[in-house]
């Protein structure tokens, strides 16, 4: 028995492996044990397992779990080629990073998933980086946290922060400028509508601008070096809503109308605030930082209040 086994191994192992790979290539979606059994009926289960194990360990096959059972699939030659010459640990780390996609993965998470010591992981990561297989990207969420992802991937918005970030720094000035420009645009439109002296209904309707119009205006202004999408502009317009300067309505639009999304169009218009600064804020007490410590007869009191004195002299 042992004799037969040795003989088989020596002569046929390569052949069996080739057969399995061929099968996999024929069925790129993956094959099950059953398929191999059907194709190679004379093969003993032991040998089949051995052959598959070898293929798996050399990284030529992927083992997947599906509803019908285990599934073998051939690995694409490219990725197999890339990590050629690496050891198992490197492959493991590479796989973990690959699974993380364009969101990236933190080195500590790699450690949890791979169960390798951190020093080892750092070595592997350095290695892979030097081979240009992976890259480290700084996340905007936490400036000191580096995440790793495959070299050819474009980092996700949640990592880079989208158009509003340059090198993990939030471009608040850029946002502020856009915010002001959008408001200016809407305000001019609203004023023009008010001056048109038409019936109130038309006046209001013409004070609205769709997000597409605002987007076009901003693009033509050319204040932005990066390409802004409509969504980006809508985010800016939303901040104007939270500033209480703009209001939005959604109207139904015919499919295909410029600026409509899913048959909806977002319309924005500039509005005036409903009240002037309220009475209490026109007194020094409204803004006083030591208001709670202020008592007549105390160290801080209305009688010796310097804010009041300045205010009265103003």
């Amino acid at each position, binding site marked *: 028995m042992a004799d037969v086994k040795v003989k088989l191994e020596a002569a046929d192992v390569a052949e069996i492996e080739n057969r399995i790979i061929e099968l996999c290539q024929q069925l790129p979606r993956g094959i099950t044990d059953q398929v191999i059994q059907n194709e190679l009926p004379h093969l003993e289960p032991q040998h089949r397992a051995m052959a598959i194990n070898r293929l798996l360990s050399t990284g030529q096959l992927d083992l997947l779990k599906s509803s019908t059972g285990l599934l073998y699939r051939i690995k694409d030659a490219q990725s197999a080629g890339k990590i050629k010459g690496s050891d198992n640990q490197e492959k493991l780390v590479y796989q973990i990073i690959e699974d993380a996609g364009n969101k990236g993965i933190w080195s500590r998470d790699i450690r949890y998933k791979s169960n390798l010591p951190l020093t080892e992981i750092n070595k592997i990561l350095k290695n892979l980086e030097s081979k240009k297989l992976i890259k480290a990207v700084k996340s905007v*969420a936490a400036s000191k946290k580096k995440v790793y992802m495959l070299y050819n991937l474009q980092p996700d918005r949640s990592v880079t922060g989208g158009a*509003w970030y340059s090198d993990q720094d*939030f471009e*608040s000035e850029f*946002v502020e400028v856009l*915010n002001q420009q959008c408001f200016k645009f809407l305000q001019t439109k609203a004023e023009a509508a*008010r001056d048109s002296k038409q*019936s*109130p*209904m038309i006046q*209001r309707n013409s004070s609205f601008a769709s997000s597409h119009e605002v987007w076009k205006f901003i693009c033509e202004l050319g204040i932005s070096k990066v390409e802004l999408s409509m969504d980006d502009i809508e*985010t*800016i317009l*939303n*901040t104007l*809503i*939270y*500033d*209480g300067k703009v*209001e939005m*309505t959604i109207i139904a639009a015919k499919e295909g109308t410029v600026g409509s999304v899913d048959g909806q169009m977002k319309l924005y218009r500039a*509005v*005036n*605030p*409903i*009240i*002037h*600064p*309220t*009475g*209490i*804020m*026109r*007194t020094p*007490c*409204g*803004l006083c930082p030591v*208001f709670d410590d*202020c008592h*007549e007869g105390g160290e801080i*009191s*209305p*009688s010796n*209040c310097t804010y*009041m004195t300045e*205010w*009265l002299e103003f």
Partner: protein
Amino acid sequence: MTQAEIKLCSLLLQEHFGEIVDKVGTYLLRTGSQPLRLISNDTGTPVDQVKKALCVLIQHNLVSYQLNKRGFVEYEAHHDRVLRILRYPRYIYNAKTLYGDTGELIVEELLLNGKMSMSTAVKKVADRLTETMEDGKAMDYGEVSSTFVRLVDTHFIYRCPAPLESPEGVAAPAPVAPLLSTNEKDMYTVPKLSMIGKGKRRRSSEDDDDTSEQQTKRQKKEADSKEALPDDGIYWQVNTERFHQHFRDQAIIGAIANKMDQVSSEIVRTMLRMSEVTTSSNASHTQPLSSNEIFRSLPAGYNISKQVLDQYLALLADDPLEFVGRSGDSGGGMFVINLHKALATLSSATLESVVQERFGSRCARIFRLILRKRHLEQKQVEDFAMVPAKEAKDMLYQLLSENLVFLQEIPKTPDHAPSRTFYLYAVNTLSSSRLLLQRCYKTVANLIERRLFETKENKRLLEKSQRIEAIIASMQATGAEETQLQEIEEMITAPERQQLEALKHNVNRIDASENQVDETIFILESYIESTSAKH
């Protein structure tokens, strides 16, 4: 009631009624209802002084009394009424804008005296108006009383509850505290129904007779002392609720005018005026009004066609402000004004304005954002408001420490572990409004303190200038020469004059601010009241 409120009440009482009334009033505010003896004991004030103070307070409707089960009388102060003293200038000013100088003086007299009979009020006002007029002219009583009647007609003034004249009153057992017997009898016989209605018409007719009888004011003054007044025992007082309703309407109209335009605000004004009588002051909506009705009631000066009016109404109903709502289609469309919603919006606009002024517009953006989205996580706030994470964190914590936003924890697991808990920021307008209201009270108290301080500092100077003015006036009356007058005027040196000017400026400014803060107080109070009435 809070410390800030008591402090403010005390200052107001002190300023308007003096030390003793302040002592008694503040004591009552602090302790709740108390009998006379206890007030006297605890405040260390002689009983007759306490009695006088209570008389003043009762006359001004600041204190009410009631019989305890054990048979003694208890006095209770009402802090809300005391705080209204702050609003007196506004009542008077509004009466002036609505009914001219006569209205102003009538309301002023009534406020200053608490309760007054119509005849004395009319007489006094006519006298005062005559004084300001040129020689030879005099204010007609009839004119004054007609203004008075108009004020009553529009519910700005109403009749005080009067003692019921029932035979039982005589037979009532002697009260426990003999000193208070009259009060006690009154107390039991106060009819609440005789506010307006019939009594009012009778009064005006009687008063007309009254005025025709006595032509000039000199004659009248003599008559005063001789004969009892015809409307003795029927007293009138200012209906603050009605004024508040008017203020509320004005605030709504103002908001519409700011947000939309003049014409819209005029339409809303018309709607509010139409529903003044039909809607009770604490209703959450006005009665529905049809567009046809509104069209007919628009002021004559406004040349709006029915079509345009309909457009305006549609716009008003469509606006996200939701002050005006459409309730039906009959009669060309039925419209209501959502009073509660309007107050809530005004109040949150006030809060927003406070955040904006105190913490800057970025913070206001975050505040509005949370207000709109109700509950948000910190990360979401940063993303929506487009504020750098670090700044947003700072601002949120600042708002949190000032109690303008609060933090809602939602644990995923029962152990409340921070890593497995959602932390949601939210705004509670009602509690924030209450908080701000307290701040307003303290602010007004501070302003009053400062004003008192300013006048106290310059007391000597003020007295001097008053003395000199008196001397000049008397010398002018005796016909002194110009040079003499100048000499006396020069007794106030230039720096002193400057100081007086500065003082006047300061006091005026503080006074103006007190009124401004009161506007904020009014909005917040109305909102809190209307919200608590709803639940």
